[in-house]
């Protein structure tokens, strides 16, 4: 029932009394940063009509209904000198760890989603969504295979006049490693550990699709619904997002954009870990 804050010398993140991430403080300045999980219900279409196919492996086609997962999140807080964590439980099938390491200037989100319940006969596509007060004016950036960041404008294409019939999926773009938005003063970037779909459907908000479980084929050739089952249940997916938030300051060294690239190198080209049984060795022998 109380606000909770974790952090380090670079930043603090706070969670409101409902258990949701609510703000981030960088250099003494507090800004809105809310995160939650929502899901889209999948469209059951008519595969005989090419423009009305079901949401499936090839097509992301929500039926227009967006559902929130919960109004309150259970929290557990772990504090220490190396890492501070908040363990969040959103529902029986969505949980997350929000983590701040002592010497890192980003926030790590380790989400776990699944098995997605489909007993109601409705496929679901789950997204992690971040909300800020950034005045992004419909503009956001997604990367192109980990290389250039491409400028995307909501409900717009550069070379033709666009009349979007599907307002959600029509604004989704592939995100291989990074999605970002900014205004003149602040910037938010989310790095992902695997290719995902992402968008900014409102000014100041970013979202990435983390998991989906669908019950109908979309008639594009796979001939089965995207309904992965493990041990007779739906698949559980676990992964990470890394969030960088900060003031846009061209004089800062490194700039926030440069920090994103350094972090990309660090998390996407990680060290290789090897383990050895040292039961038969004294430390001095090993040394």
């Amino acid at each position, binding site marked *: 029932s109380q606000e909770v804050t974790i952090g380090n010398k670079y930043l603090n993140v706070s969670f409101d009394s409902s258990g949701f991430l609510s703000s981030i403080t960088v250099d003494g300045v507090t800004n809105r940063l809310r995160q939650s999980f929502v899901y889209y219900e999948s469209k059951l279409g008519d595969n005989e009509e090419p423009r009305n196919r079901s949401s499936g*492996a*090839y097509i992301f086609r929500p039926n227009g209904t967006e559902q929130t997962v919960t109004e309150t999140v259970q929290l*557990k807080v*772990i504090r*220490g*000198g*190396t*890492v501070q*964590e908040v*363990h969040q*439980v959103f529902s029986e099938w969505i*949980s997350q*760890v929000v983590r701040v*390491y*002592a*010497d*890192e200037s980003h926030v790590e989100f380790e989400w*776990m989603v699944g098995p997605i319940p489909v007993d109601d006969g409705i496929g679901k596509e789950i997204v992690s969504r971040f909300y800020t007060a950034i005045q992004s004016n419909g503009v956001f950036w997604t990367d192109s295979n980990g290389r250039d960041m491409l400028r995307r404008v909501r409900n717009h294409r550069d070379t033709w006049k666009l009349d979007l019939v599907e307002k959600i999926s029509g604004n989704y773009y592939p995100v291989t490693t990074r999605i970002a938005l900014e205004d003149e003063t602040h910037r938010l970037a989310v790095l992902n550990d695997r290719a995902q779909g992402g968008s900014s459907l409102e000014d100041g908000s970013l979202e990435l699709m983390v998991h989906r479980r669908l019950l109908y084929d979309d008639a*594009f*050739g*796979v*001939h*089965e619904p*995207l309904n*992965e*089952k*493990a*041990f007779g249940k739906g698949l*559980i997916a*676990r992964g990470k997002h890394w969030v960088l938030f900060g003031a846009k300051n061209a004089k800062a060294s490194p700039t926030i954009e440069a920090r994103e690239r350094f972090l990309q*190198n*660090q998390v996407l*080209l*990680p*060290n*290789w*870990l*090897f*383990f*050895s*049984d*040292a*039961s038969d*060795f004294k*430390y001095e022998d*090993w*040394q």
Partner: protein
Amino acid sequence: EPHLTVLREALGVMQHHDAITGTEKQHVANDYARMLNRAIGACSANTQAILNQMVDPKYRRSLRSEPEPGAHPEVPPRPKYKFAFSSCHLLNVSKCELTESKDSFTITLYNPLAHAGHQYVRVPITGDHYIVRDYRNVEVPAQIVPIPEPVQRLSYRFSNATSELVFLANELPPLGYKSYFVSRAIDTLEDFVHEMGSKPAQGPASAAVEPSPLGEPTRWQ
């Protein structure tokens, strides 16, 4: 070279657009996972051999190699070393049989980048007290963090780990490696009594300190 070729061939298959986007049928997805797992396992023979060339010569000698049961006939058996470097492919579900069951183990980080780096290492463990030392015998600050309850509840994780050991591995040299020695500590009499008390009362003392089998059914691979 044949070990590397297994991964080359698997990556050749994975360039199919269905493997990139995930639009393959489920049984094909399962087969892709099987191929990649086998290929990465084959390549571990190479990383193992190279790391053993770096370590002290007295631990470099390879032991007699035996073909593994069920191994592909075209893939030569992996050499066995006195000091073996193994990977834990299930760290993403907070599971590593070696770190969970051994009282002493080493963690080696190879930095594939051309500049120095750092990483917060997380490994699943079952004990309460551990000491992490680097190669200079300097103790590295480490923290034990509970594994989130929803992860612990996963019925098919097959792990006894309830916590993760977290420490900062820093100054990792470019295109080089750094190792840490981790030992489980019983540092007070009270801990010692607690430690002994948590073991089964029956059976000889030597059996009590042996790591217990994780109870993983052999049918899961």
